[in-house]
């Protein structure tokens, strides 16, 4: 069988807090094949960004493995890590906090190239910067601007240009288009998909926009409080969502027309489980309409109920 470009095995990231261990990422197993896109969705705070950051070692994992082309990069030393850093990039969720306010646009884009010393000739660097700005649609006059002078969309383009600077193989996209208007969003998504076709980029795409995730992903993983609760191909997940949380999520999508305006929409109610030292069992249980006793007390199997369709819920655990 083909080897995945990226694979995680029982990956965990706990944060220590004064109240105990916060299980931000709690045993994630995933595989992403070269040239494919894995979409990651889930409740705000469920650990999507932490998962992304742990995979590329911006955060140190608490437990588990991250395999890049079959090698566990969590065992890599500083030098080895430096060598593969350029192959794995991240586009951040927050275009405000992630850009250094004291650097100009060109300095920000050029930084990874300088750090990795892939190109050293200044003229070539400048040429690369203007190519990158072109690719993401930033006007040349902005080379010497500072991030605070720009609107959210232009700032996000800087983040994308910066991530593309080293021609990485794997890009984690943490809400790369959520700050953009739908037209520029469409331009950027087309651009990312073209780059994937041409260069074979592999993406892990985190977003709250379900129509975007459906459009761009081959596979989608749904997370809830640190765990994967469902995964399937993009079409299958939308046609046949199994987990009650996935169903609630798809049911809450707002459509850009007035057909559902006056409908009384179901709101997911109930207490939110605290991720600090959670008890065994389904973490969605306190809010689940199908709750029964078996849901709590024991871990629930992440089961392949149909080819390539995984779900973790007692309803499917016969």
């Amino acid at each position, binding site marked *: 069988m083909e080897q995945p470009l990226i694979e995680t095995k029982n990956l965990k990231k706990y944060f220590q*807090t*004064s109240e105990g261990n*916060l299980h931000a990422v709690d045993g994630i197993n995933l595989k992403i094949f070269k040239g494919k896109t894995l979409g990651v*969705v889930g*409740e*705000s*705070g469920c650990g999507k*960004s*932490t998962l992304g950051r742990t995979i590329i070692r911006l955060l140190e994992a608490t437990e588990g493995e991250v395999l890049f082309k079959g090698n566990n990069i969590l065992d890599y030393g500083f030098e080895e890590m430096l060598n593969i850093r350029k192959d794995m990039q991240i586009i951040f*969720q*927050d275009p*405000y*906090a992630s850009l250094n306010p004291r650097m100009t646009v060109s300095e920000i884009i050029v930084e990874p190239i300088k750090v990795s010393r892939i190109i050293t000739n200044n003229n070539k660097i400048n040429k690369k910067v203007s190519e990158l700005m072109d690719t993401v649609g930033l*006007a040349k*006059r902005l080379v*010497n601007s500072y991030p605070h*002078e*720009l*609107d*959210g*969309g*232009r700032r996000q383009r800087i983040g994308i240009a910066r991530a593309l600077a080293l021609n990485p193989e794997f890009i984690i996209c943490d*809400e790369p288009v*959520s*700050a*953009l*208007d*739908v*037209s*520029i*969003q*469409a*331009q950027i*998504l*087309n651009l990312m*998909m073209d780059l994937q076709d041409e260069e074979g980029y592999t993406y892990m795409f985190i977003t*709250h926009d*379900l*129509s*975007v995730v*459906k*459009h761009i992903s081959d596979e989608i993983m749904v997370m809830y409080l640190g765990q994967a609760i469902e995964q399937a191909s993009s*079409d299958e997940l*939308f046609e046949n969502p199994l987990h009650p949380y996935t169903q*609630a*999520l798809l049911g*809450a999508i*707002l*459509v*850009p*027309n*007035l057909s*559902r*305006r006056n409908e009384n*929409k179901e*709101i*997911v109610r109930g207490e*939110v*489980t605290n991720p*600090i030292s959670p008890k065994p069992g389904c973490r969605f249980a306190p809010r689940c309409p199908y709750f029964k006793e078996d849901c709590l007390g024991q871990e629930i199997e992440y089961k392949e109920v149909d080819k390539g369709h995984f779900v973790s819920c007692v309803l499917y655990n016969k």
Partner: protein
Amino acid sequence: MAERLLEIKDLNVVYETDESVVHAVNNLNLVINKGETLGLVGETGAGKTTAALSIMKLLPDKTGIIKRGEIGLENINITIATKYDKRLLRGNVISMIFQDPMTSLNPTLTVEYQIAEVLALHKKDMKKAELSKRVDEILEMVGLPPSRKHEYPHQFSGGMKQRVVIAIALACEPKLLLADEPTTALDVTIQAQILKLMKELKEKLDTAMLLITHDLGVVAEICDKVAIMYAGQIIEQGMIEDIFESKYHHPYTEGLFDAIPDLSKKTKRLNPVEGLMPDPTDLPTGCFFHVRCRKCMDICKTKEPEIKWTNADKTHLIKCHLFNDNK
């Protein structure tokens, strides 16, 4: 007759930097009545945040300048109001949810402290125990476990920080809520919960809202009126039905709707408005959209179109030569 709360007349805002002058807001006119929710949609960089910051009097010192126009709040022209009025007008009358949650959160204070501080300001007679209980309720309302209130903002995810900011803004019970992309960082189930809270605030206190968003699904769900901006100008404005159900639209509005990925169809490529946004330091002549417009005519290149009513009820405005009689 609806009671006017906010009226913006002919607002022009620029940013003057060393090298250039950015024309961020050009001849903006807007009215929001009590209890009304106006959706402000438009392209990235169109000037939506700048318009909101002008209302808050929070434009950056020295660089951000109101060149012309009036902003009337409860019939007071706040562009000339004094410092004292400023304070009075913010806090009690207006609150704002910023696009970037860290604008309003203090990284060195716990989440509990920051919510309690605002509550204490607004409800002066509240006792300590009562305050603490209210903080728990407010956190629950936005889907955060109250047991996490002793944490600091950096321990929260992006969307969790945004929810704290929303919680604080709603707790102020303002007459006018300026919400800049409030739910963009949230998943759709939490978003549904927040939108419901906003609707309740509107029903209970007649709160008016200016909701800045790129999400036309959110607009369809909660707005009464919609204004669409392009390059600092409003190019189309109307009641929710005008925007979602009329046959007539500005070509940019049509482009926006066409660019949304359709859940019910499988397409290889999305369909954006071709071309790049105009440079706000060097805006085109004629219609600002003409360089990208599929319906561009000769007149569009030289003459700026007027904004005109397109229906007999006078609710739906479009700024485009296709709807000007002299085309």
